Structures are given as structure tokens and as C-alpha cells.
């Protein structure tokens, strides 16, 4: 070959082939490989030639080509393997209790790990099924007010549209108006639909929810089209073949234009029916300031989110600033100078479920902290189980010492003994893994129920996962078995066959260390669980600023013609104390935002606002700090009640009554500036989630311009909830037979808001219990060991006159030291971890209050430790000393 030197075939594969190929075949076969390589090189290039070469070499690994690798050695190895496996099984069957404890503990901990991993996997898998989800972001807003900062998941409807128009780097935009309640009429039957959602026409192109009927492109392009989920279609029509059927909503007649699958569980939003965004006429399409919709932007491939953000800021300055200046009559620069900011940011779609906890999310999201906590619990549990294994195996060294001695005398060398013990522990691990996987399948339905999930383990369909599990089992077996294997195989035959007990200082150091670690983990878990419980309890009993008990809420009083008459009729019921309506129930419904200014002051303040009927304050048992409540005896159309925070922001905290505040024009106040007189100041109550702090609030009366917003009625009652519910229902049915009657009990609904925390707390409790159980198994093993090595000492003590109680005390006090050391180490760790968790809550207990958790945690650990140890120590202590001393 002239010119350039020829390339070589991949050197590693060349050497590999040389290594395994039979010598007599090597030259010819290598020649063939080379010939093909060079021909491929010339016709198809180096890459292809190398690829083919590698494939060919690997395919040469077959019996007719493979060298015979030292047959002799292979045979003894496999024979040893067989014998050892058989011995391992015999040993396991012989010691049934030990095997049960060992395999049981390992299997349970593996099952728990499996469940945790499946749970974590399902939490991490949210929103990953949408096409190009890695390029989709939700636009969110950090709104800085002069006195506080709020984070919103929703943004002005026109803003994101303008961002898309001005920005070629955005491929598409889908805006979604969160699902809400709506009365639906289908052929004279009325239904209450809680999952009525609005979205841009390209919704089904940008989200991975599958359409069963209808075309992705234009299923929402008719102005009054609607798409139903499968279950909604079944609910309304009893069939999914309903294209073209009509239904009536508050926005007029809707035509069913498509059917989609039910929203997959791993989606951060949920709906039952979806309509075009334009149909929701209350969303003024030109609003750049008031937040209303979730906006999902899909960036063009390769575009960084930062690039898009630059454009968003420009849009704010160009469009939002103008609207603000018109409404507030001050310049945008002045507005910003007074401490107002709109900081928009992008959230990756798949991160929303775990990492986003803003105001106005679609639903309560998961929490990445819990994921880390659960993962660490899983790791702890497995480590605990491995430690048990080590403790139990070394604990049995006395029993096995003779076996080791005999084997050594018969010519076994150390490495083959190590092999034997390792194989034994690998067998235990594999058996445990099989049982553990079985347990996962068995407990999955219960777990799903408990955690509110729909997980199906699919291990049996994934050979790769099975292999990985096997590898984990083998690895765990080796890690856990290596220490006992070396300890057991290092016994000196002469010593052990004489019957002397083996006791080494360094060995006890390691074992004690392991027990301390186990107890450290257990105590830490107990304390964390207790602190979580304390915090949940605190939240549930926190003074909300109103009384949530004995309150029933009737929804949808929007639609009834005369709320006052209805209210009076309900109030006339014997079990009802009082009723009053509002635009929304604190803690559950939204308060809307508007700007205010104290007369004679040009400082803008954004308040959340709500509307109360006369008597609502009293019905909810809110506390007035000053002034009076709305009343029929006054003309209250231009009166306002503010909360303490609002009074502080306005600087009229000392004497708020009679002050004039101006409600500035804006998206929610299109009629222009208007002055209100402050007639009362209410004590701060939680009108938002307890995760967020209370911010300024303004309350308008029923007679004010906002009176029309009133839509829910609170009914305070005495006696049984059931009777109230049915009495109110009969009044409702009598008067508005066509309207669906919807109600809930305030206490239940508020508690639901914290189900995410409560559920995680419960899960945590279960895992903790299991971890403690496993730690106890280890302690049990250690107690066996220590007592069996001190059995003569106990005998001698008893002969010399020690009482049984004295002996038990002696042994137990050894363990006390270990547990106390563990307790001391765990305190700072728990404090550090729980501090972070507690800080997630706007209202939380202080760490000082958690001392009781540490006390209880320590006492529980001590009690559990004593119980475990006392079984063995009492047995040894009450035994006849003659028996113990005669064993020589």
C-alpha cells in the first residue's frame, strides 16, 4: 500500500482476541479479521471498519474458538462453589431462629427500600410525558411589594402572549386557566363540575395528554368547543361516542369536539373538561398587570431560558408599565422607586411538581425535601440491615468456631473459608431479595392507598431491573459478609478446638460502634418523627383568626336570586346559629388584588381584597380590634374594613377608624379611583395557606361596588353536621330545584390542605417504626454474643452470691452507655435537619419547643434497648450456674 500508513484495528479488541483465541486458529482467523477490516476501511471508512471489527471479535467468543482456560482450576472452583452453597443452605436451615431474624430483617428492609424507590421514582416522573418537556417552562412571578414579597404561579394573560409575539425564540405558548367549579346542564340535568379548565387552542399539541377522539390541531379551535375526559364523558353522556353533542355552561352552549384520556396522575394539574381560553370572558385579553393564567412557553431548541427572560423584562417595561401608569397616574419609575417590582422567572415544566410552591398552583405540589428525606431513610434502613447481618454473624462465632477449627485441621486454607462465609452471606441476601420483592408486590395496594398513589411495580417485566436487583443482593452480601468472613476464618485451630472463647478488643470496638450507629439512626428518626408530629399538631391547632369548627359552607350561591332571603330561611332552622355570605372562604378561596393609597399620601399599596355580607365576621368568629363590623343600620357602600397588616402598611395602626383610603383604578377596579372610609380593623386571620404569611387585606361590604362577587355562604351550626346538611338541602331543593346543591364542612376542607404534610408524616412514622425494629434485631444479636461470651462470668458471680437482678443490671448498664452515646450524637444532627424543614412553614414551632421530642425519643430508645437485651440477660441470669460452669 503506497502513501499514508494504514490504521490499525482497535488495539484493545486485537489484544482481547489474541487472549481468548485458540492458538492453532489464531493466525488464520486474525488474518480474516484483518482482511475484512482493511477492505471495510477502504470502502466504508475507518469508523465503520472499527465498528464491524469490534462486533466480529465479540462474536468470536464461542466454544469452537475459545481457548480452554486451565480446566483443572475451573473444576475445583465450581465444585467448591457447589459444596459451599449446599453448606450455606444446610447451615441456614439448621439455625432456624437466626435465619428467620436475619432473612426477615433483610427482606423487610429491602421491601421498604423498594417501596421508597418506587415512590420517589413516581414523584420524580411528573410531567415527563409531554413532548419536548425539557424545553417547556412555566412563566412565574416574584412580585415585590413595598412591604412584602409574594410568589405567583399565574401571570397576566396578555403578557405571555406579547412575549411570544416579540420573541422568535419561543416556539409556542399555551396559557391555561386553572380548573374551577361550574354548573353544567346536559339535557335538563344539572351537574356541578369541579374540573372546568380553560386553555389555548394548542393545548393538546403542547401537552402529552392523548386525544381519543378529535384532532390535536383544531379540537379547541371552535369558539365554543369543549373536550371532555373519558370519565367526564361517561358521567354526562354514559358513552364516549359523543362528538357533536351539546351541553350548557355558565358561558353558553358548548359543543363536544373531542374526548381525551383522563389526565395522567403524574401531571401537576387536573381537569375534567376543557374549553378555549377565549370563552372565559372575564379574562380581559389585554390585561398586562393582573395575574390570572398559567403560561407555558416552549423554547426553540437550544435556546437558554435566560435569553427569553431578557425579552420578558422588556415586555413588562413596554406594556405593563403603560397600563400601570394609566391606572395609578404615576410614572413606572416612581412606582418602582417606591419598592414595587415584577420579577418574572421561568420554571422547567418537570420541576413544577416537586420544586414549585407558589401562590395559585393548580394543586398542592409534592416536596423535594420529602424526596431527600425518604431517600436517606431508605439508605439508612439498608445500612441498618447490613449492620445487623454483621452483628448476627459475628455473634455466632462461638458456635462456628469449632467448625472452622476442624476445617483448618483438615487442610482448608484461609481463603477458601472466606469464600465459604461469603457465599453463605450472598445466599442469605439473594433469598432476602426474592422475599423482599415478593413483599413489595404484596404491600403495594396498601401502600398506594396510604400514600395516595397509583404505582404498579413492573419488576417482572424488566429483566434489566431483575439483574440489577440480583447484583445489589450479591454486592450487599459481599459487603455485609466480608467482616464476619475474615473474623471467622482467622480463628487459630488449636485455640478454638481446645474450647477457649475468642474475645478481641478491636472486635468489640467495631461491634459497639455499629450498635451506636444503629441507635443513632433510630433515635434521630424517632426525634424527627416526633417533631414532624408536633409541627402538624401545631398547624392544626393554630389560631387561624377564625373558628373553623361547626361551620358548613354552601357553595354556588352566585346563582340564587336572593341570598338574603335564603340566608334568613336557613338561619331560622333550630340547629343554625347564624349565616352570612362572602366572596370566598378564608384559607380556601382566593382574595383578589387591588391597589390602595391613604388619602393625602402617594404611597401605593397592594391589598388582597374580599367581600363580606353583614354578619360574616361574627359568623366566622373573627376578632375586631377596633371599630365596627358591617351592619344593616349603616350605609356601608363606601366603607371598608382592613386587617392589622394593612393598617400597619398604611401607618394608621394606632387609630385606623375614620381614615380615608383610595381604591385606585386597575384591572379589578375598572370604574376608577374611589374613596372608602375605614370603619373597622380586624385581627389578622389566615386567609391564605399557612405556608405563607398574612399580607394586607381589605374587606368590602355587600352593598359596595364589589357586592356582586358574593358567592359562598357560611353556616354556623350546633349539633350534628348531618342534620344541618340535610335541612339546608331541603330548603335549597324547594327553592332552586334546578341548581346543584354543593356544600362542605370547613374543618374537613382546611385539614385537607395539609394532607400532603400529614401523609408524608404518616409514611415517615411507618418507616421509622421499621427502622427501629431492624435496629432492635441487631441489638438482639449483639446481646446473644455478649452474653454467650460472659456466660461463665455470670455463673461465677452467681455462685459467689450475686442476685439475678444484680446480674441483669450489670449487663443492661453496658448497653445503656451505647444508647446514651447515640442519643448525644443524634441531637445536633436532628436539630440541623429539622431546622431546615421547619423553616418551610411561615408558622412553625421553635426548636426550643422540641425538647420534649428528644426526651421521648431517648426514653423510647432506652426502653426498646432494655426490652431487647433483657430477654437474653434474664435468661442467663436465672439459669442454674452449675449448667453454665459445667460446659468446659
Amino acid at each position, binding site marked *: *500500500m503506497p502513501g499514508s500508513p494504514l490504521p490499525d484495528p482497535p488495539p484493545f479488541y486485537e489484544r482481547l482476541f489474541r487472549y481468548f483465541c485458540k492458538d492453532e*486458529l489464531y*493466525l*488464520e*482467523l*486474525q*488474518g*480474516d*479479521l*484483518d*482482511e*475484512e477490516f*482493511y*477492505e471495510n476501511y477502504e470502502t466504508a471508512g475507518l469508523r465503520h471498519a472499527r465498528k464491524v471489527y469490534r*462486533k*466480529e471479535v465479540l*462474536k*468470536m*467468543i*464461542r*466454544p*469452537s*474458538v475459545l481457548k480452554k482456560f486451565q480446566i483443572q482450576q475451573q473444576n475445583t472452583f465450581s465444585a467448591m462453589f457447589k459444596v459451599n452453597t449446599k453448606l450455606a443452605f444446610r447451615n441456614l436451615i439448621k439455625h432456624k431462629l437466626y435465619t428467620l431474624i436475619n432473612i426477615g430483617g433483610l427482606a423487610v428492609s429491602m421491601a421498604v427500600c423498594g417501596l421508597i424507590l418506587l415512590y420517589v421514582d413516581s414523584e420524580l416522573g411528573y410531567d415527563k410525558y409531554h413532548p419536548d418537556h425539557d424545553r417547556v417552562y412555566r412563566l412565574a412571578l416574584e412580585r415585590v411589594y413595598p412591604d412584602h414579597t409574594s410568589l405567583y404561579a399565574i401571570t397576566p394573560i396578555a403578557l405571555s402572549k406579547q412575549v411570544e409575539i416579540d420573541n422568535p425564540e419561543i416556539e409556542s405558548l399555551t396559557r391555561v386557566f386553572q380548573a374551577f367549579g361550574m354548573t353544567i346542564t346536559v339535557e335538563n340535568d344539572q351537574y356541578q363540575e369541579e374540573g372546568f379548565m380553560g386553555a389555548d387552542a394548542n393545548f393538546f399539541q403542547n401537552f402529552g395528554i392523548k386525544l381519543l377522539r378529535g384532532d390535536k390541531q383544531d379540537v379547541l379551535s371552535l369558539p365554543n368547543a369543549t373536550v371532555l375526559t373519558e370519565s367526564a364523558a361517561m358521567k354526562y353522556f354514559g358513552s364516549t361516542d359523543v362528538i357533536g353533542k351539546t351541553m350548557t355552561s355558565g358561558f353558553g352552549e358548548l359543543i363536544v369536539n373531542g374526548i381525551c384520556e383522563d389526565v395522567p396522575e403524574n401531571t401537576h394539574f387536573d381537569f375534567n373538561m376543557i374549553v378555549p381560553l377565549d370563552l372565559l370572558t372575564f379574562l380581559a385579553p389585554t390585561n398586562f398587570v393582573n395575574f390570572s393564567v398559567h403560561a407555558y412557553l416552549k423554547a426553540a431548541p437550544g435556546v437558554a431560558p435566560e435569553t427569553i427572560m431578557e425579552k420578558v423584562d422588556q415586555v413588562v417595561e413596554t406594556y405593563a408599565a403603560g397600563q400601570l401608569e394609566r391606572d395609578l397616574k404615576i410614572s413606572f419609575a416612581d412606582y418602582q422607586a417606591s419598592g414595587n417590582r415584577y420579577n418574572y422567572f421561568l420554571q422547567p415544566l418537570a420541576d413544577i411538581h416537586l420544586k414549585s410552591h407558589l401562590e395559585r398552583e393548580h394543586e398542592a405540589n409534592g416536596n423535594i425535601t420529602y424526596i431527600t428525606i425518604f431517600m436517606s431513610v431508605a439508605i439508612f434502613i439498608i445500612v441498618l440491615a447490613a449492620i445487623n447481618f454483621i452483628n448476627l454473624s459475628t455473634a455466632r462465632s462461638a458456635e462456628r468456631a469449632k467448625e472452622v477449627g476442624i476445617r483448618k485441621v483438615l487442610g482448608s486454607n484461609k481463603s477458601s473459608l472466606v469464600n465459604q462465609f461469603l457465599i453463605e452471606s450472598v445466599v442469605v441476601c439473594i433469598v432476602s431479595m426474592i422475599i423482599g420483592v415478593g413483599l413489595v408486590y404484596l404491600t403495594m395496594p396498601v401502600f398506594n392507598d396510604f400514600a395516595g398513589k397509583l404505582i404498579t411495580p413492573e419488576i417482572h417485566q424488566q429483566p434489566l431491573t431483575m439483574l440489577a436487583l440480583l447484583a445489589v443482593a450479591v454486592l450487599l452480601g459481599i459487603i455485609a459478609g466480608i467482616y464476619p468472613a475474615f473474623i471467622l476464618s482467622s480463628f487459630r485451630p488449636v485455640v478454638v478446638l481446645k474450647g477457649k472463647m475468642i474475645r478481641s478488643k478491636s472486635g468489640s470496638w467495631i461491634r459497639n460502634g455499629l450498635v451506636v450507629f444503629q441507635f443513632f439512626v433510630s433515635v434521630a428518626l424517632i426525634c424527627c418523627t416526633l417533631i414532624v408530629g408536633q409541627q402538624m399538631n401545631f398547624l392544626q391547632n393554630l389560631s387561624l383568626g377564625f373558628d373553623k369548627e361547626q361551620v358548613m359552607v354552601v357553595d354556588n350561591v352566585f346563582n340564587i336570586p336572593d341570598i338574603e332571603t335564603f340566608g334568613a330561611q336557613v338561619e331560622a332552622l333550630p340547629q343554625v346559629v347564624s349565616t352570612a355570605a362572602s366572596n370566598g372562604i378564608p384559607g380556601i378561596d382566593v382574595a383578589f388584588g387591588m391597589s390602595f393609597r391613604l388619602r393625602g399620601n402617594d404611597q401605593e399599596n397592594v391589598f388582597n381584597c374580599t367581600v363580606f355580607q353583614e354578619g360574616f365576621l361574627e359568623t366566622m368568629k373573627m376578632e375586631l380590634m377596633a371599630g365596627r363590623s358591617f351592619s344593616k343600620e349603616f350605609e356601608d357602600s363606601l366603607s371598608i374594613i382592613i386587617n392589622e397588616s394593612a393598617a400597619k402598611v398604611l401607618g394608621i395602626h394606632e387609630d385606623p377608624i375614620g381614615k380615608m383610603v383610595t381604591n385606585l383604578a386597575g384591572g379589578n377596579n375598572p370604574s376608577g379611583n374611589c374613596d372608602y372610609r375605614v370603619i373597622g380593623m380586624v385581627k389578622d386571620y389566615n386567609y391564605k395557606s399557612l405556608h405563607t404569611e398574612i399580607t394586607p387585606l381589605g374587606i368590602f361590604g355587600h352593598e359596595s361596588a364589589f357586592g356582586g362577587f358574593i358567592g359562598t355562604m357560611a353556616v354556623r351550626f350546633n349539633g350534628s353536621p348531618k342534620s344541618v346538611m340535610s335541612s339546608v338541602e331541603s330548603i335549597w331543593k324547594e327553592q332552586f330545584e334546578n341548581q346543584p346543591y354543593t356544600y362542605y364542612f370547613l374543618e374537613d376542607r382546611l385539614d385537607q390542605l395539609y394532607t400532603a404534610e400529614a401523609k408524608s408524616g404518616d409514611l415517615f412514622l411507618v418507616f421509622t417504626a421499621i427502622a427501629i425494629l431492624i435496629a432492635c434485631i441487631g441489638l438482639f444479636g449483639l446481646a446473644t454474643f455478649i452474653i454467650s461470651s460472659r456466660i461463665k462470668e455470670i455463673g461465677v458471680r452467681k455462685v459467689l452470691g450475686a442476685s439475678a437482678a444484680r446480674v441483669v443490671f450489670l449487663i443492661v448498664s453496658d448497653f445503656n452507655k451505647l444508647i446514651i452515646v447515640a442519643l448525644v450524637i443524634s441531637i445536633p444532627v436532628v436539630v440541623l435537619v429539622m431546622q431546615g424543614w421547619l423553616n418551610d412553614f411561615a408558622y412553625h414551632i421553635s426548636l426550643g419547643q422540641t425538647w420534649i421530642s428528644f426526651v421521648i425519643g431517648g426514653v423510647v430508645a432506652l426502653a426498646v434497648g432494655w426490652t431487647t437485651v433483657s430477654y437474653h440477660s434474664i435468661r442467663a441470669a436465672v439459669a442454674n450456674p452449675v449448667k453454665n460452669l459445667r460446659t468446659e
Partner: protein
Amino acid sequence: MRGETLGEFEEIVLLSILVLGDDASGYTIKKELNQSADRDVSRGALHTSLSRLETKGFVKSKQGEGNDSRRGRPKRHYEVTNEGKSALHEAKERRDQLWNRIPGVRLELQYAW
């Protein structure tokens, strides 16, 4: 029959050697199989088959010279023995007999499927 039958793969290997004539060596047989029989055969699989054919006595081989593209490594030339040829004929005959015994209608039905 002498108890040594031909597998389907062995049959096409033998046929390929006959097609190649004097030029039949490991690599050329492989190429022939890839091209004419449209099968992606690895050299390893071919080796197994060739050595089995050789023990059955259907092919014989002799070592030949190397060249540059083999970096001087020797080449093995294969040749079909008379036993090999008669085994091929036998296989073909048996197959033809079977084909001839298929009633025409059934064949048509199969094709018309």
C-alpha cells in the same frame, strides 16, 4: 444415509464454497454469504460451521499464503469433498421429492394467502 445430515446453514455454506471455486477462504465465504444469501454472518459463527463440516468430512482445507492486507497471516482455503457434494445432492433430492408431493392446489392456496 450415513447419519451425517446437512443443516440449512451448512448447506448454503457448502454451496457458497462451490460457487467461489478456487477462491474459497474464510473471508470470501463470509462475503459471499452476506451478499448472495443476504445473511449477516459473523466470522465466528462461520468458523464453527466450517470446522463442523470438516469433522463430518464434507470439506477439506489447506493452508495458503498470506498477503499485505492480512499483514502476512496465512489463509485457509476450503474445498468441498465428494462426500460433501453427494450430501448436497441428497439434500436437494429429498427436498425436491417433498416439493413434488405437494398438491398444486395447496401450493396455490398458500401463495394466494
